[in-house]
């Protein structure tokens, strides 16, 4: 808030923390299947999630605070996914990308696929599509930022 010529900005610690947190979401490099190709496109120069503060994909779960589950989660992968999620420091967020991750997708009648990653880890934003376009994933990340700042309707 600007008052006169002095230029004072008033805010709360919580607001400032949420603002900083939402604008420095570092995702974990975690591609499971074909959706990971679209996730790489999001990181590339054309779509470029650096514009939203998701600067680089970290290679260690201990340095990242956003897990984009991109691709089919098999039953064998689920314990590993849980372990990676447990290694991430708080606060941590999960984006479920693609229908395979949301409810099993085309493998819903198979024997080997987890029917929704929300059975394994809590999910913040669901991005549907097979695969979702880079625009959709960017929108998902922006939705997550709004959620962190407490601006969402739900």
């Amino acid at each position: 808030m600007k008052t006169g010529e002095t230029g004072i900005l008033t805010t709360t610690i919580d607001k400032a923390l949420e603002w900083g947190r939402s604008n420095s979401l570092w995702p974990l490099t975690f591609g499971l299947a074909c959706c990971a190709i679209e996730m790489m496109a999001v990181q590339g120069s054309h779509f470029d999630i650096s514009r939203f503060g998701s600067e680089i994909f970290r290679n260690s779960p201990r340095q990242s605070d956003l897990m984009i589950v991109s691709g089919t989660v098999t039953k064998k992968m689920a314990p590993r996914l849980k372990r990676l999620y447990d290694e991430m420091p708080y606060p941590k967020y999960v984006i479920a990308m693609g229908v395979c991750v949301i409810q099993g997708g085309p493998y819903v009648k198979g024997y080997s696929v987890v029917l929704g990653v929300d059975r394994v880890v809590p999910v913040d934003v669901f991005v549907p599509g097979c695969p979702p376009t880079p625009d959709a994933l960017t929108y998902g990340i922006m939705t997550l930022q709004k959620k962190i700042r407490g601006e969402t309707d739900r």
Partner: protein
Amino acid sequence: MVEILEEKKGKDGRPIFVIKKSDLLEFMRQKKQEGFDHLSLITGVDRKDYMEVNYHLYSFSKNQYIVVKVTTDNLTVPSLISLWKSADWEEREQYDMLGIRFDGHPDLKRMFLPESWVGHPLRKDYDLNNVQYINMDEYGEDYATFDPGDGW
């Protein structure tokens, strides 16, 4: 003397040889000497009454593929590991998915699924309604379970 039961061409033009199971090792040895030095693929097919195993061989010098088919009634096929080392994992995969046992394989265990998994999922009579789940124990070993609360 190897008896070829049937010789035909596939849709992709690859020659297909259907041979007896007892002739498999001898036939493959001949083909390897003829220059088919690369075992490209082993797959199995469940024909309900019997199992079929297909071998795709490739020759680098001739740039040519051939397909060898054998059928088995009692789920056993001779292992090709004495000819090609790559048969190791391919045969383990077929054992995992279809339950075909390969005689002479040194380490025939499941390739992808945990050892405690019940049944072979690519068989026609596999029961998909009896859902199994996988979890990891404290030593990092996978195990399969029917309890939905235990794994995923």
